[in-house]
């Protein structure tokens, strides 16, 4: 600020001593960027200006600066061409590009930070299920690296984790005016960089890239589990940043201790900071999100349709967006939409891929997960270590396959249908309160769907 003031004063005097065109051409975009030991460093927009000013106006500038600040002994010039550089080359783009021409979306990503400018916090709709994560995110932005470090966000697919963490990155960039170096990376990219580094013996590049930041954001950390070299490299990167009070932000689809292959030393570190979960959105939040998205697109939908969609699409916000896109498309194409058409679209979109799953697969998956034999599940044993898995099995058979209660009882050792009813209602209630249980169920579902 002080430099700016000094330079403005100097410029107004220099302006009097040289001709107007010369002033505009050579000195208009100049700045005083540093002053130490009597040496003033002046930046100019291009090399031509540098040559010209250095050769022609050195004495003028030096004497003006000296009048304002006696300590000035010498001036050095440098070139920084930040903006407006394409001025002379401006030309009208002849064929105006139509809106329907698709563009490479990836090119919009900021190459330095890897952040997609599309995600920002102001478009993040806050509700009961994500308010904790959002509050913590705001705190992280205000006090980078000090308050919650590392900041670990977890939650299911399509609930807005990526939006939130990229939003944090973009917000930090905006708030600190690019003075804080942010880097966003998916764990897949991180792994690829490690592989590249090892293969080309360029690990130094990799270290420089990731340790030279103030905020490191890693998305979907669960995927580095089990990749030994990547975990090792990440561990060291983590430590290097953490020790220097650099902010680390991590997202995952489940809490650290439930990432099966993640090494203990990493998961314990993750738990040392702030853990925040993003849960399934409640009805009000879904409604709010839908309304925001409709507004963003400049569309208009009848209230009963919006409410219907918010009611039906419950688990995945990406699905919610997909359904909305199709509804809007339908509305534009056919100029109008009925509730019936919406119902069809919703049903088509949110169908679960249940066709290829049979009850035995479910039983086997549960048994594998709890490391017991499938026979235990169907057997008579009533130890706690078997009862819980058995109830989970019943719950899943009902939840995924929609089997009837008598059928479930029959499949699990000819039990009474009331046992199945009891297990299902017990778990349905508990699953929303007990995070541990919820995680187990999600992990088992993963196993089932992956097969």
């Amino acid at each position, binding site marked *: 600020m002080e430099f700016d003031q000094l330079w403005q004063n100097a410029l107004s005097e220099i302006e009097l001593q040289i001709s107007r*065109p*010369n002033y*505009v*051409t050579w000195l208009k975009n100049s700045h005083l960027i540093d002053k130490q030991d009597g040496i003033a460093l002046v930046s100019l927009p*291009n*090399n*031509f*200006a*540098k*040559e*010209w000013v250095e*050769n022609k106006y050195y004495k003028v500038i030096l004497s003006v600066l000296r009048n304002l600040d006696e300590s000035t002994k010498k001036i050095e010039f440098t*070139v*920084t*061409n*930040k*903006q407006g*550089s*394409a001025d*002379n*080359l*401006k*030309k009208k*783009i002849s*064929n105006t*590009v*139509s809106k*329907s*021409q*698709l*563009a*490479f979306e*990836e*090119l*919009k*990503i900021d*190459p*330095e930070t*890897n952040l997609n400018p599309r995600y920002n916090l102001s478009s993040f709709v806050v509700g009961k299920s994500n308010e904790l994560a959002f509050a913590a995110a705001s705190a992280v932005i205000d006090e980078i690296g000090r308050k919650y470090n590392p900041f670990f966000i977890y939650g299911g697919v399509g609930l807005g984790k990526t939006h939130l963490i990229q939003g944090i990155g973009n917000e930090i960039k905006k708030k600190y005016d690019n003075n804080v170096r942010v880097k966003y990376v998916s764990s897949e990219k991180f792994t690829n960089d490690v592989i590249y580094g090892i293969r080309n013996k360029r690990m130094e590049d990799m270290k420089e890239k990731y340790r030279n930041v103030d905020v490191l954001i890693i998305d979907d950390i669960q995927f580095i589990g089990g990749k030994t070299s990547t975990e090792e490299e990440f561990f060291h990167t983590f430590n290097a940043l953490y020790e220097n009070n650099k902010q680390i932000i991590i997202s995952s689809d489940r809490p650290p201790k439930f990432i099966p292959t993640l090494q203990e030393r990493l998961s314990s570190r993750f738990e040392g900071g702030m853990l925040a979960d993003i849960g399934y959105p409640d009805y009000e939040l879904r409604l709010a999100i839908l309304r925001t998205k409709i507004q963003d697109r400049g569309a208009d939908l009848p209230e009963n349709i919006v409410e219907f969609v918010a009611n039906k699409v419950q688990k995945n916000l990406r699905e919610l967006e997909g359904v909305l896109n199709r509804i809007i498309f339908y509305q534009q194409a056919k100029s109008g939409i009925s509730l019936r058409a919406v119902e069809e679209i919703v049903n088509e979109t949110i169908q679960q891929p249940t066709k290829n799953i049979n009850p035995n697969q479910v039983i086997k998956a549960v048994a594998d997960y709890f490391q017991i034999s499938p026979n235990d599940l169907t057997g008579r044993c009533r130890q706690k270590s078997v009862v819980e898995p058995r109830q989970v099995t019943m719950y899943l058979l009902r939840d995924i396959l929609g089997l009837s209660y008598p059928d479930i009882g029959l499949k699990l050792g000819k039990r009474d249908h009331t046992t199945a009813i009891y297990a299902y209602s017990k778990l349905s209630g508990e699953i929303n309160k007990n995070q541990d249980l919820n995680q187990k169920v999600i992990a088992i579902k993963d196993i089932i769907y992956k097969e």
Partner: protein
Amino acid sequence: MKLVILKNNLRDGLNALERTVTENTNLPILKNVLIRTFNNKIQLSATNLELAITRFVSGKIIEEGSITAPLSTLLSITNNTNNERINLNVENNTLLFKTDNYEAVIQGLPEEEFPIIPKLENISNYLQINSEILKDSLSKVINAVQISEIRPEISGVLFDFQVTNFKLVGTDSFRLAEKTINENEFKSTFQRGFKIIIPLKTAQELLRISMSEIVTIFIDPNQMLFKSDDLEIISRLIDGTYPDYEQIIPKSLETDLVFEREHLVNAVKLVSTFSGKINDVKISLKDGKKFLEIYSANQYLGENKYLVPTKAKGKDFNVSFNWRYLIDGLKNFSSQEMVFGINGDNRPALLKNSADNSYFYILMPIKS
């Protein structure tokens, strides 16, 4: 200054500088060419403060000196004069242009008012390449570049030099072209790689101006120099980081079409006559995947279609492209047979030559 110079030499020299001069209300001298004697040669220079081109031409120097004079005037009288020998004399800021039966007195300005052309600081390391190869490679990527005021970093050609390979890349975010120059086609003393972005205008001038066989490239943090026997082109570099474009390159192709290039170029040109405001032509497979149909329709004119024989592998499709983008890409190839890879109607398609993977062109479809 007193010179005798052959018409052709002067004309060629001025031609090289022609597009560099600009009208600048603040600095009218920018429309002038600097003429001076230097090392027994005649130096001609012009600049627009982003780019400076200097050409040395031979002639007989009777008396050393310098002047600047309006380039367009000088070029036009040089072009139209009949005599082979031209005398150029400077007297008090006027340039006397004289042949056997013609004489012109041109108002000039002294050299002291002409911008000083910057020098490069790092000339110890260089990259040397055959100028034909450089021009050929540049011409293959340049038509994908467009000036964007919002995104200066893609308003130029990326020179991505990584010691063992050298890539040129251009994009306007709707299509992207990448040309790799093989390791044995250049010589370099750089130990480390660099990525620089050359302004489109500089690239256009490089293509336009004739130069000798070898061109040497020097790099400074914010400017670069192309040097060939009688030519020096100094240009600023675009400040910014080129986007990480590699993630755009399709890793797999849903449909693989092999066809004869000329045939498709003609088909697209012909069919485009009926295409609408958004320049769209629709492409699909017909007749048991033996033919590629190119189709366009216009509600006022009517419709037309063309069948090009092809060898297709993979999924059926129905995708629209901007025909200009498609032709731009097709024209950048020289092979007879080539491959068009399509990935449905909302992911990038790829043009390549199956025998030569040093070049490819990617383009995005138009949403139908």
